[in-house]
Protein backbone atom coordinates (compact mmCIF):
# COMPACT_ATOMS: atom_id res chain seq x y z
CA UNK A 1 0.00 0.00 0.00
CA UNK A 2 1.45 3.32 -1.01
CA UNK A 3 1.55 6.29 1.31
CA UNK A 4 -1.84 7.91 1.94
CA UNK A 5 -0.50 11.16 0.56
CA UNK A 6 0.28 9.55 -2.78
CA UNK A 7 -3.16 7.97 -2.95
CA UNK A 8 -5.02 11.11 -1.91
CA UNK A 9 -7.04 13.05 -4.47
CA UNK A 10 -7.80 16.67 -3.70
CA UNK A 11 -11.47 17.27 -2.83
CA UNK A 12 -11.62 20.76 -4.25
CA UNK A 13 -13.56 23.74 -2.96
CA UNK A 14 -14.91 26.76 -4.75
CA UNK A 15 -15.93 27.70 -8.26
CA UNK A 16 -14.11 29.40 -11.10
CA UNK A 17 -14.82 32.26 -13.46
CA UNK A 18 -16.07 29.90 -16.17
CA UNK A 19 -18.68 28.48 -13.79
CA UNK A 20 -20.59 31.76 -13.50
CA UNK A 21 -23.19 32.53 -16.16
CA UNK A 22 -25.25 35.68 -15.66
CA UNK A 23 -28.54 34.60 -14.11
CA UNK A 24 -27.11 31.54 -12.33
CA UNK A 25 -28.49 31.27 -8.80
CA UNK A 26 -26.92 29.87 -5.67
CA UNK A 27 -28.57 28.92 -2.39
CA UNK A 28 -25.59 29.11 -0.05
CA UNK A 29 -24.69 26.48 2.50
CA UNK A 30 -25.08 26.18 6.24
CA UNK A 31 -26.97 29.22 7.46
CA UNK A 32 -25.91 30.71 10.76
CA UNK A 33 -27.74 31.50 13.98
CA UNK A 34 -26.36 34.73 15.42
CA UNK A 35 -25.87 34.35 19.14
CA UNK A 36 -25.28 36.95 21.84
CA UNK A 37 -21.62 36.03 22.06
CA UNK A 38 -21.02 36.57 18.34
CA UNK A 39 -22.55 39.99 18.54
CA UNK A 40 -20.74 41.01 21.73
CA UNK A 41 -17.38 39.85 20.37
CA UNK A 42 -17.91 41.50 17.01
CA UNK A 43 -19.05 44.90 18.30
CA UNK A 44 -16.35 44.97 20.98
CA UNK A 45 -13.43 44.07 18.71
CA UNK A 46 -14.55 46.33 15.84
CA UNK A 47 -15.17 49.15 18.36
CA UNK A 48 -18.73 49.63 17.17
CA UNK A 49 -19.92 52.01 19.84
CA UNK A 50 -23.68 52.24 19.59
CA UNK A 51 -25.19 50.83 22.81
CA UNK A 52 -28.17 49.28 21.02
CA UNK A 53 -25.76 46.48 20.01
CA UNK A 54 -24.47 45.73 23.52
CA UNK A 55 -26.75 47.29 26.16
CA UNK A 56 -30.04 45.37 26.36
CA UNK A 57 -31.73 47.98 28.57
CA UNK A 58 -30.90 50.76 26.13
CA UNK A 59 -32.03 48.63 23.18
CA UNK A 60 -35.36 47.90 24.92
CA UNK A 61 -35.86 51.60 25.66
CA UNK A 62 -35.36 52.16 21.93
CA UNK A 63 -38.19 49.76 21.10
CA UNK A 64 -36.25 46.54 20.47
CA UNK A 65 -36.86 43.23 22.28
CA UNK A 66 -33.20 43.18 23.38
CA UNK A 67 -29.80 43.93 21.86
CA UNK A 68 -29.72 44.35 18.10
CA UNK A 69 -27.18 42.43 16.03
CA UNK A 70 -24.63 44.88 14.63
CA UNK A 71 -25.54 45.40 10.95
CA UNK A 72 -21.88 45.00 9.96
CA UNK A 73 -21.98 41.52 11.55
CA UNK A 74 -25.10 40.68 9.54
CA UNK A 75 -23.30 41.84 6.40
CA UNK A 76 -20.17 39.84 7.23
CA UNK A 77 -22.10 36.63 7.96
CA UNK A 78 -24.23 36.80 4.81
CA UNK A 79 -21.06 37.52 2.85
CA UNK A 80 -19.21 34.71 4.64
CA UNK A 81 -21.89 32.14 3.85
CA UNK A 82 -21.56 33.03 0.14
CA UNK A 83 -17.78 32.66 -0.11
CA UNK A 84 -17.44 28.96 -0.95
CA UNK A 85 -19.94 29.24 -3.80
CA UNK A 86 -18.73 32.54 -5.17
CA UNK A 87 -15.19 33.57 -4.41
CA UNK A 88 -13.16 30.89 -2.66
CA UNK A 89 -10.98 30.24 -5.71
CA UNK A 90 -9.00 33.33 -4.86
CA UNK A 91 -8.73 36.84 -6.16
CA UNK A 92 -9.30 40.12 -4.45
CA UNK A 93 -12.61 41.39 -3.13
CA UNK A 94 -13.06 44.50 -5.27
CA UNK A 95 -16.07 46.16 -3.73
CA UNK A 96 -19.70 46.42 -2.71
CA UNK A 97 -22.42 48.59 -4.20
CA UNK A 98 -25.99 49.35 -3.30
CA UNK A 99 -26.12 47.60 0.07
CA UNK A 100 -29.32 48.07 2.06
CA UNK A 101 -30.07 46.88 5.58
CA UNK A 102 -33.77 46.06 5.46
CA UNK A 103 -34.76 44.94 8.93
CA UNK A 104 -33.10 44.56 12.30
CA UNK A 105 -31.66 41.16 13.24
CA UNK A 106 -31.61 39.95 16.86
CA UNK A 107 -29.42 37.34 18.54
CA UNK A 108 -31.19 33.99 18.28
CA UNK A 109 -32.24 34.63 14.70
CA UNK A 110 -30.91 32.49 11.86
CA UNK A 111 -29.50 33.90 8.65
CA UNK A 112 -29.35 32.22 5.27
CA UNK A 113 -27.98 33.62 2.01
CA UNK A 114 -28.50 33.33 -1.71
CA UNK A 115 -26.97 35.03 -4.75
CA UNK A 116 -27.48 35.53 -8.45
CA UNK A 117 -24.71 36.20 -10.99
CA UNK A 118 -25.08 39.68 -12.49
CA UNK A 119 -22.15 39.81 -14.90
CA UNK A 120 -18.69 38.50 -15.64
CA UNK A 121 -15.78 39.75 -17.71
CA UNK A 122 -12.12 38.87 -18.13
CA UNK A 123 -9.52 40.97 -16.35
CA UNK A 124 -7.50 42.94 -18.90
CA UNK A 125 -4.44 43.17 -16.65
CA UNK A 126 -4.53 39.69 -15.04
CA UNK A 127 -5.28 36.96 -17.64
CA UNK A 128 -5.45 34.27 -14.94
CA UNK A 129 -8.36 36.09 -13.29
CA UNK A 130 -11.83 37.29 -14.21
CA UNK A 131 -14.19 39.82 -12.66
CA UNK A 132 -17.60 38.63 -11.46
CA UNK A 133 -20.46 40.54 -9.83
CA UNK A 134 -23.28 38.97 -7.84
CA UNK A 135 -26.39 40.24 -6.10
CA UNK A 136 -26.50 38.61 -2.66
CA UNK A 137 -29.49 38.56 -0.31
CA UNK A 138 -29.67 37.51 3.34
CA UNK A 139 -32.85 36.25 5.02
CA UNK A 140 -33.96 35.55 8.55
CA UNK A 141 -35.72 32.35 9.69
CA UNK A 142 -39.09 33.75 8.57
CA UNK A 143 -37.80 34.23 5.00
CA UNK A 144 -37.83 37.99 5.52
CA UNK A 145 -35.01 39.70 3.69
CA UNK A 146 -32.66 41.52 6.07
CA UNK A 147 -29.90 42.66 3.70
CA UNK A 148 -29.13 42.91 0.00
CA UNK A 149 -25.93 43.95 -1.79
CA UNK A 150 -23.92 43.70 -5.00
CA UNK A 151 -20.42 42.32 -4.62
CA UNK A 152 -17.61 42.25 -7.17
CA UNK A 153 -14.57 40.01 -6.94
CA UNK A 154 -11.63 38.86 -8.95
CA UNK A 155 -12.15 35.13 -9.49
CA UNK A 156 -9.63 32.53 -10.64
CA UNK A 157 -10.01 31.17 -14.17
CA UNK A 158 -10.22 27.42 -14.47
CA UNK A 159 -6.97 26.85 -16.39
CA UNK A 160 -5.00 28.75 -13.78
CA UNK A 161 -7.03 27.33 -10.91
CA UNK A 162 -6.40 23.69 -11.76
CA UNK A 163 -2.71 24.12 -11.08
CA UNK A 164 -3.45 25.14 -7.50
Amino acid at each position, binding site marked *: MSDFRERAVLWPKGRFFEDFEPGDRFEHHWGRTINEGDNALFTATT*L*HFNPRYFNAEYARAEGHPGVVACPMLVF*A*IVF*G*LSVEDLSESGGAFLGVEDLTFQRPVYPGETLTARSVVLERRPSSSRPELGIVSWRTEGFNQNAERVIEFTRTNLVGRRAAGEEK
Partner: protein
Amino acid sequence: MNHRALTGSDNYFEDFTPGMVVRHARGKTVEAAEHVLLTNLVMNTAHGHFNEHAMQGGLFGQRMAFGGYTASLVIGLASQDTAENAVEELGLDGIRFPTPVFAGDTLYAYTEVLETGAAGREDAGVVTFRHWGVNQDDKIVFEGRRRALIKRRPQSRP
Protein backbone atom coordinates in the same frame (compact mmCIF):
# COMPACT_ATOMS: atom_id res chain seq x y z
CA MET B 1 -30.67 54.26 33.98
CA ASN B 2 -30.64 57.64 32.28
CA HIS B 3 -30.63 56.44 28.70
CA ARG B 4 -29.82 59.81 27.21
CA ALA B 5 -26.64 60.01 29.25
CA LEU B 6 -25.38 56.77 27.66
CA THR B 7 -24.58 58.39 24.33
CA GLY B 8 -22.83 61.60 23.32
CA SER B 9 -24.56 64.96 23.07
CA ASP B 10 -22.45 66.26 20.16
CA ASN B 11 -23.31 63.70 17.51
CA TYR B 12 -27.01 64.16 16.83
CA PHE B 13 -28.42 64.80 13.36
CA GLU B 14 -28.12 68.59 13.81
CA ASP B 15 -24.39 68.27 14.45
CA PHE B 16 -23.66 67.03 10.93
CA THR B 17 -23.20 69.58 8.14
CA PRO B 18 -22.35 68.65 4.56
CA GLY B 19 -18.68 69.31 3.87
CA MET B 20 -17.44 68.68 7.39
CA VAL B 21 -14.49 66.29 7.51
CA VAL B 22 -13.29 64.68 10.71
CA ARG B 23 -10.32 62.61 11.75
CA HIS B 24 -11.40 60.08 14.36
CA ALA B 25 -9.34 60.02 17.52
CA ARG B 26 -8.43 56.36 17.93
CA GLY B 27 -6.56 53.89 15.78
CA LYS B 28 -6.38 50.13 16.15
CA THR B 29 -3.62 47.67 15.34
CA VAL B 30 -4.85 44.60 13.47
CA GLU B 31 -4.03 41.47 15.46
CA ALA B 32 -3.76 38.22 13.47
CA ALA B 33 -5.78 36.39 16.13
CA GLU B 34 -8.54 38.94 15.86
CA HIS B 35 -8.94 39.27 12.11
CA VAL B 36 -8.75 35.48 11.72
CA LEU B 37 -11.25 34.94 14.54
CA LEU B 38 -13.79 37.30 13.02
CA THR B 39 -13.27 35.83 9.53
CA ASN B 40 -13.99 32.38 10.93
CA LEU B 41 -16.85 33.64 13.09
CA VAL B 42 -18.70 34.87 10.00
CA MET B 43 -18.13 31.59 8.14
CA ASN B 44 -15.84 33.02 5.46
CA THR B 45 -14.14 29.87 4.10
CA ALA B 46 -11.44 31.52 1.96
CA HIS B 47 -8.24 30.25 3.56
CA GLY B 48 -6.21 33.13 2.15
CA HIS B 49 -7.44 34.85 5.30
CA PHE B 50 -6.50 32.09 7.77
CA ASN B 51 -3.83 29.75 6.33
CA GLU B 52 -0.50 31.48 6.89
CA HIS B 53 1.44 28.50 5.50
CA ALA B 54 -0.36 28.49 2.14
CA MET B 55 -0.13 32.26 1.84
CA GLN B 56 3.62 32.32 2.37
CA GLY B 57 3.83 31.12 -1.23
CA GLY B 58 1.29 33.67 -2.46
CA LEU B 59 1.33 37.19 -3.81
CA PHE B 60 1.79 38.91 -0.43
CA GLY B 61 3.64 36.15 1.44
CA GLN B 62 1.14 36.23 4.30
CA ARG B 63 -2.55 36.13 5.17
CA MET B 64 -4.58 39.15 4.15
CA ALA B 65 -7.41 40.48 6.30
CA PHE B 66 -10.95 39.84 5.00
CA GLY B 67 -12.43 43.01 3.50
CA GLY B 68 -15.58 42.55 5.56
CA TYR B 69 -13.39 42.78 8.66
CA THR B 70 -11.53 45.86 7.36
CA ALA B 71 -14.80 47.61 6.51
CA SER B 72 -16.25 46.75 9.92
CA LEU B 73 -13.19 47.97 11.81
CA VAL B 74 -12.96 51.25 9.89
CA ILE B 75 -16.67 51.93 10.37
CA GLY B 76 -16.16 50.93 14.00
CA LEU B 77 -13.34 53.45 14.42
CA ALA B 78 -15.75 56.09 13.08
CA SER B 79 -18.76 54.81 15.04
CA GLN B 80 -18.65 56.73 18.30
CA ASP B 81 -18.69 59.99 16.37
CA THR B 82 -21.03 59.02 13.52
CA ALA B 83 -23.14 56.06 14.70
CA GLU B 84 -23.52 56.33 18.47
CA ASN B 85 -26.89 58.05 18.07
CA ALA B 86 -27.90 56.11 14.95
CA VAL B 87 -31.40 54.70 15.17
CA GLU B 88 -30.87 52.55 12.12
CA GLU B 89 -28.11 51.77 9.64
CA LEU B 90 -29.64 52.15 6.19
CA GLY B 91 -26.98 51.14 3.73
CA LEU B 92 -23.51 51.17 2.21
CA ASP B 93 -22.30 51.98 -1.28
CA GLY B 94 -19.08 52.48 -3.24
CA ILE B 95 -17.10 50.20 -0.92
CA ARG B 96 -13.47 49.81 -2.10
CA PHE B 97 -10.26 48.38 -0.67
CA PRO B 98 -7.38 50.17 -2.45
CA THR B 99 -4.61 48.67 -0.26
CA PRO B 100 -4.59 45.24 1.40
CA VAL B 101 -4.53 44.96 5.20
CA PHE B 102 -2.26 42.61 7.12
CA ALA B 103 -1.73 41.70 10.76
CA GLY B 104 0.41 44.37 12.39
CA ASP B 105 -1.09 47.22 10.37
CA THR B 106 -2.64 50.05 12.34
CA LEU B 107 -5.82 51.57 10.95
CA TYR B 108 -7.28 55.03 11.43
CA ALA B 109 -10.56 56.45 10.18
CA TYR B 110 -11.70 59.70 8.57
CA THR B 111 -15.22 60.81 7.68
CA GLU B 112 -16.79 63.43 5.44
CA VAL B 113 -20.45 64.38 5.74
CA LEU B 114 -21.85 64.28 2.20
CA GLU B 115 -25.52 64.99 2.67
CA THR B 116 -28.18 65.42 5.33
CA GLY B 117 -31.92 65.17 4.84
CA ALA B 118 -35.30 64.58 6.40
CA ALA B 119 -36.53 61.09 7.14
CA GLY B 120 -40.05 59.71 7.36
CA ARG B 121 -40.09 60.47 11.09
CA GLU B 122 -39.78 63.58 13.20
CA ASP B 123 -37.16 62.45 15.68
CA ALA B 124 -34.37 61.51 13.24
CA GLY B 125 -32.79 62.47 9.93
CA VAL B 126 -30.76 60.72 7.26
CA VAL B 127 -27.03 61.44 7.02
CA THR B 128 -24.81 60.20 4.21
CA PHE B 129 -21.17 59.84 5.24
CA ARG B 130 -18.05 58.99 3.29
CA HIS B 131 -15.63 57.01 5.42
CA TRP B 132 -11.98 56.31 4.76
CA GLY B 133 -9.62 53.94 6.52
CA VAL B 134 -5.89 54.57 6.29
CA ASN B 135 -2.97 52.50 7.53
CA GLN B 136 0.18 53.52 9.40
CA ASP B 137 1.80 54.54 6.10
CA ASP B 138 -1.15 56.82 5.31
CA LYS B 139 -2.29 54.52 2.49
CA ILE B 140 -6.04 54.23 1.96
CA VAL B 141 -7.22 50.72 2.84
CA PHE B 142 -10.98 51.36 2.74
CA GLU B 143 -13.38 53.89 1.33
CA GLY B 144 -17.13 53.87 1.10
CA ARG B 145 -20.36 55.72 1.66
CA ARG B 146 -22.71 54.93 4.51
CA ARG B 147 -26.28 56.10 5.09
CA ALA B 148 -27.73 56.12 8.57
CA LEU B 149 -30.80 57.40 10.33
CA ILE B 150 -29.47 59.63 13.13
CA LYS B 151 -31.49 60.89 16.10
CA ARG B 152 -32.33 64.57 16.25
CA ARG B 153 -31.26 66.28 19.47
CA PRO B 154 -33.97 65.72 22.09
CA GLN B 155 -35.74 68.97 22.99
CA SER B 156 -36.84 68.22 26.52
CA ARG B 157 -34.79 67.27 29.53
CA PRO B 158 -34.65 63.53 30.16
